């Protein structure tokens, strides 16, 4: 590692239908960060509600509704809500 640079904050984006349970992810992070450069780092989680939309007219379909466009009859597509993304790492700049 370069000069003991420490990570201060990790930003992750987790969709509610990604299959990842946010509380369990926090527990896992707290467990596995020990004695790493992430020890003491904050895990900032941005949760994303699922949403579907018609691929033709972009009309949105509400969660729990039939996933088909009222207007066009086409199957709706998920536009968000299944992401598991490491967005950003905030860390100390290496001493130069």
């Amino acid at each position, binding site marked *: 590692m370069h000069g003991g640079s420490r990570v201060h904050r990790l930003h992750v984006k987790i969709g509610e239908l990604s299959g990842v349970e946010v509380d369990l992810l926090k527990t896992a992070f707290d467990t596995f960060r020990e004695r790493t450069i992430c020890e003491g780092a904050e895990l900032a989680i941005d949760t994303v509600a699922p949403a579907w939309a018609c691929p033709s007219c972009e009309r949105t379909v509400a969660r729990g509704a039939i*996933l088909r466009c009222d207007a066009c009859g086409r199957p709706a597509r998920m536009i968000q809500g299944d992401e598991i993304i490491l967005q950003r790492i905030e860390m100390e700049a290496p001493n130069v």
Partner: protein
Amino acid sequence: MCETCGCGDPEIVPIEVQERILSDNDAQAGHNRSHFDGLGLLAINLMGSPGAGKTAVLEATAKLAGERLKLGAVSGDLATDRDADRLNASGIVSATITTGSACHLDARLVHHALHHFPSSDRDIFFIENVGNLICPAIYDLGQAANVVALSVTEGEDKPLKYPVMFQKADLVLLTKIDLIPHLDFDVAAVEDAVARVMPEANMLKVSAKTGEGIDTWLRWLEERRPATVERPSDGHQHEHDHEHD
């Protein structure tokens, strides 16, 4: 060091990553996909609860397909070879992926199994996932389609309770329909539940016991088979940068 005020605190720099946390698995799944393409076979990720009837459906599929199609399968199993033994007995060339305490297959486990698989001339290759309606949905294995087996004894509300699994499904197989006369099971209710979590809702009703619906399921599979390709002797058309053990 901080150059703004000279306080001596380290300077914090943000590093943009924007990478999928499972990108390693995705890359491995892409590699598996090139294996499947090279072999000219249709790969199906078959998921469902323990006891949903995944193995029984495959046995019935082999019975109907007979000599017409060469079927292969790998079965994810925590501790036994029972599923692979049953499938081999039914005429499907099969191997077990022993997962120990892991509750799902990932692309690396499937890749390893592919390189130890006893046959490279299969038409349809089933990846029978570990019985579980949660974790298997998250991991791409390189399959062409995800199929979820849901048995009538599990209840009509399961699609609503496990939306991640059904969101990822290309087909739902409603299994054990021969039991419907003995149950208070509402087929319309499960169709409605599927339509609320699966964008291109598609459900086939089958019974491995009576064979009902297995013909439609087999047709669904055959329609998805890739166009015939010239098969290389070892199935390796893709570039490899790794050793096979």
